[in-house]
């Protein structure tokens, strides 16, 4: 029960041959079958082929990547004012239907309209109209997917959120910000030296990261919209692994300024660093729990690296990971229920998801061998991570049960260090 959906490509080819620019942008490959998936038809939007983005294809790709929807193939064109025959769509196997239109306005913007129907109940579930700049057409499509997702699942969608990641092409490194589907990437920082560990501020306006531009690891923060940078930690030795507190008022980072890699909490500008851990071992990769009270981190105090937690205010250190001799890169779900991390098993580095309150042995949820850097989508339903596939570094998203995976970016550059941003636009 494993297949690849290349229907986007087919759909695009069927649609029209005059949108060459748009074709190249769809590289999302989805694999797997979820247990319960709502069959949904996303019809072609009226006049969407007159823009640079095929909105219906973006909406469908978003919904399929989420794991709870299954796209129904269709070449039908339905706009938001249409009166689709529900019996016809029921016979095609669709439980829900989306239609819409794109109209160019006199000021150069596009009026994007859509409507969602519950095919089973024959009911209009509502729609919206948004005037957007041409550069925001992709975002408009993601907002439509968010609307559909929320109407049909009762949970907030994450399709309009952003991700940050690092690309390397030869000796050129770039910190990039892209849509949650990996498309529309823009460079936030170009550097001849490595960049690692991007971390979104909780309001989505800043990225902290580690740059080696000074021939050593230094933590910076950068305003995404303006590009304005500031140094957060540039102490003697290495400065790395930044993570923000949930209120955005402080950061945690690994500093070696006192010898050894140890965890410090500091103000949002790096002021008043306070040492949290005190061990002769490596303590690093700290991340705040969603309530801001606990730090989860990696330490080799027991020999190999394992995951531990400690109160931010200081206190007893408690071990969290027990299976395997190499467990790193903890990430907590927004509700604090799950921890995603990387575990080495028989020489392979695999993404694991553990339910923190339960003693059940966690399971690997990938079939790749070089998984790295997991982080949760802000609704907690998807995890983004880096891995190797086909001899290349790639980014993947997966549902927490590992059943639905999508390969996101596949450009010429290798991609690493993904971090899913918050709800911010």
């Amino acid at each position, binding site marked *: 029960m494993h297949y690849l959906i290349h229907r986007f490509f087919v759909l695009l080819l069927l649609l029209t041959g005059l949108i060459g620019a748009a074709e190249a942008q769809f590289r999302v490959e989805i694999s797997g079958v979820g247990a319960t998936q709502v069959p949904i038809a996303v019809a072609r939007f009226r006049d969407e082929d007159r823009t640079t983005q095929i909105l219906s294809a973006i909406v469908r790709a978003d919904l399929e990547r989420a794991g709870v929807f299954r796209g129904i193939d269709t070449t039908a064109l339905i706009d938001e004012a249409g009166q689709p025959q529900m019996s016809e769509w029921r016979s095609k196997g669709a439980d829900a239907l989306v239609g819409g239109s794109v109209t160019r306005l006199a000021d150069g913007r596009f009026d994007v309209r859509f409507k969602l129907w519950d095919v089973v109940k024959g009911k209009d579930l509502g729609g919206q109209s948004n005037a957007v700049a041409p550069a925001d057409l992709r975002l408009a499509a993601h907002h439509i997917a968010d609307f559909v997702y929320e109407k049909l699942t009762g949970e907030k969608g994450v399709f309009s959120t952003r991700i940050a990641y690092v690309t390397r092409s030869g000796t050129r490194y770039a910190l990039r910000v892209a849509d949650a589907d990996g498309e529309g990437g823009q460079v936030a920082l170009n550097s001849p030296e490595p960049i690692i560990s991007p971390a979104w501020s909780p309001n989505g306006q800043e990225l902290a990261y580690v740059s*080696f531009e000074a021939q050593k690891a230094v933590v910076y923060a950068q305003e995404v919209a303006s590009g304005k940078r500031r140094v957060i930690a540039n102490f003697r030795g290495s400065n790395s692994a930044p993570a923000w507190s949930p209120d955005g008022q402080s950061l945690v980072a690994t500093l070696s300024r006192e010898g050894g890699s140890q965890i410090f909490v500091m103000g949002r500008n790096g002021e008043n660093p306070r040492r949290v851990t005190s061990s002769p071992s*490596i303590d690093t990769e700290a991340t705040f729990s969603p309530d801001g009270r606990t730090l989860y981190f990696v330490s080799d105090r027991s020999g190999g690296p394992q995951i531990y937690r400690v109160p931010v205010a200081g206190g007893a250190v408690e071990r969290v990971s027990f299976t395997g001799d190499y467990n790193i890169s903890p990430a907590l779900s927004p509700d604090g229920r799950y921890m995603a991390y990387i575990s080495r098993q028989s020489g392979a580095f695999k993404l694991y998801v553990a339910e923190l309150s339960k003693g059940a042995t966690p399971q690997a949820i990938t079939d790749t061998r070089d998984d790295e850097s997991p982080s949760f989508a802000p609704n907690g339903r998807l995890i983004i991570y880096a891995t190797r596939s086909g001899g290349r570094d790639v980014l993947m998203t997966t549902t927490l049960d590992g059943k639905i995976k999508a390969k996101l970016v596949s450009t010429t550059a290798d991609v690493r260090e993904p971090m899913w941003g918050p709800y911010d636009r």
Partner: protein
Amino acid sequence: MKNIKFTAFALVAAAVMAGCASNVPLENKAAPVESRTPATSSSSSGAATNANSGSKVASVDLTKNTANAELARVVYFDYDSFVIKDEFRPVVEAQAKVLSADRTKKLSVEGHTDERGGSEYNLALGQKRAESVTKALKLLGVNDTQVEAVSFGKERPAVQGSDEAAWAKNRRAELTSR
């Protein structure tokens, strides 16, 4: 005179290193038979000594680690290890000698790992390797202010490749003048 001084220094250094803290276990074995002096201390270097004759050609043989040889500056490590192996003790000793002779000289010790594992944990592993070397340098008399231990983790491999041969060349500490 200078050589006697250095020999005495090296003996003291070896003794200090042999007895140093357990996390930098350097065994007290005889150093390999080779002596290295910095190419930068040019006034006493072999090639320059007889350069006053018009037809004289001084040969410099880098294969024999003569006085003009580039000072070795890389220490390689075993997998998951921070121990400076015997064969790299002379590298650390020679660098310590240079730094002790000139307190204005500064050195960056960059720790590196092979490609396996996470970037942040590898950064910390590389830091541990770098600090292993700076500790040894300080035990040999180098001032704390002269050396800085930093790490590139797995981000800057010396050689590409995903086999043990490549990994072994990437698990290293590089001693770089600042």
